[in-house]
C-alpha cells in the first residue's frame, strides 16, 4: 500500500513539475505547481511528518499559490507567451546540464550509500501515529528557539520590504522605457554619450 501511494504521488509530483516548466500559460503553470505541492504533502504524510504536511498545504498550496495567481491576474500576463526561441542553444544546453546534474547528484549520494550519519542527535521521532506534532514543537521551542525568534524578525523585514517595493510612489510613469517619476541626476546623458 505504501508503495502504491508513493509511486502515484511521485508520478503526480513529476507531472506537476513538468507542467510548470512546459506550460505556456502562467495560470496553468501555477495550477501544475499546486499539483506538485499537494503531492509532496501526501509524501510528507507517508514520512510521518503530519505537521509539516499541514503547513505545506496551508502555507504553500494555499497562500503562496494564491499569491502567484493574484499577481498573474493583477499584472494581466495570463496569456500565452510568444514562443521566442531566440537562443535554442540555451534550451539544449540547459537540458544537458540538468541531466548531468541529476547524474552527479545520484553518483555523489550513492557513493555515500544514500543515508549515513548519526541517528537521533536532536531527539528521536515520536510514534508513527502521532504525526510528530508534539516532538516537533518540543524541539522547535527548546533547541531552535533562537532561530524561531529570528524568523519573526525575517518576516517583519519581508513584509516591510515588500510594501516599500510594491508601493506606488508619486504619479505613475506612462512611458515604459524612460521613467519620469525618478529624477535622473544632471549630466548623466553627457557621460553616457561620452562613454559611447
Amino acid at each position, binding site marked *: 500500500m505504501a508503495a502504491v501511494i508513493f509511486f502515484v504521488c511521485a508520478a503526480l509530483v513529476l507531472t506537476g513539475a513538468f507542467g510548470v516548466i512546459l506550460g505556456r500559460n502562467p495560470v496553468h503553470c501555477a495550477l501544475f505547481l499546486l499539483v506538485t505541492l499537494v503531492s509532496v504533502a501526501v509524501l510528507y504524510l507517508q514520512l510521518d*511528518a503530519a505537521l509539516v504536511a499541514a503547513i505545506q498545504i496551508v502555507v504553500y498550496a494555499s497562500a503562496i499559490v494564491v499569491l502567484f495567481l493574484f499577481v498573474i491576474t493583477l499584472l494581466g500576463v495570463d496569456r500565452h507567451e510568444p514562443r521566442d526561441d531566440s537562443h535554442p542553444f540555451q534550451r539544449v544546453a540547459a537540458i544537458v546540464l*540538468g541531466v548531468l546534474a541529476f547524474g552527479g547528484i545520484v553518483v555523489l549520494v550513492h557513493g555515500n550509500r544514500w*543515508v549515513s550519519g*548519526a*541517528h537521533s542527535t536532536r531527539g528521536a521521532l515520536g510514534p508513527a501515529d502521532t504525526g510528530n506534532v508534539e516532538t516537533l514543537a518540543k*524541539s522547535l521551542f527548546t533547541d531552535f528557539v533562537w532561530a524561531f525568534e529570528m524568523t519573526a524578525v525575517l518576516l517583519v523585514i519581508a513584509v516591510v520590504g515588500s510594501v516599500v517595493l510594491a508601493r506606488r510612489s508619486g504619479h505613475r510613469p506612462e512611458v515604459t522605457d524612460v521613467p519620469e517619476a525618478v529624477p535622473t541626476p544632471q549630466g548623466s546623458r553627457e557621460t553616457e554619450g561620452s562613454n559611447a
Partner: protein
Amino acid sequence: MTALNYPDHITATYYLILAAMLFTIGAVGLLIRKNTLVMFMCVELMLNAANLSFVAYAKALNDISGQVIVFFTLVVAAAEVAIGLAIIIAIFRRRQSVNADDVDLLKG
C-alpha cells in the same frame, strides 16, 4: 541501498531520487523559461525538493531536526515569494513586461 527499510520496501533512497529529479526539473525550468513568474515557480520546485529530502532524512535517521529545518525553509520561502513578487510588480510597472530578457540594464 541501506538497511533502513520502510514498509513495502520504499526506502529513503526512493524519496531522495525523487527529490533529485524534482530539483533537476526545477533547475532546468529556471534556465529555459523567460517569464519571471514561472522562474519563481521553478525556484519553489527546487525548495520543495530540498524539503522532501530533509523529511526523508528525518525519517531515515530517526531525527526530528530534519522536520524542524523544513519548518524554517517554509518561512524563508514565504518571505522570498513576498519580496520576489513585489520586485516583479515594481519591474512590471516600469517595463510593462515580466520577461527576464527585458531586464538587462543595471540602471533604470
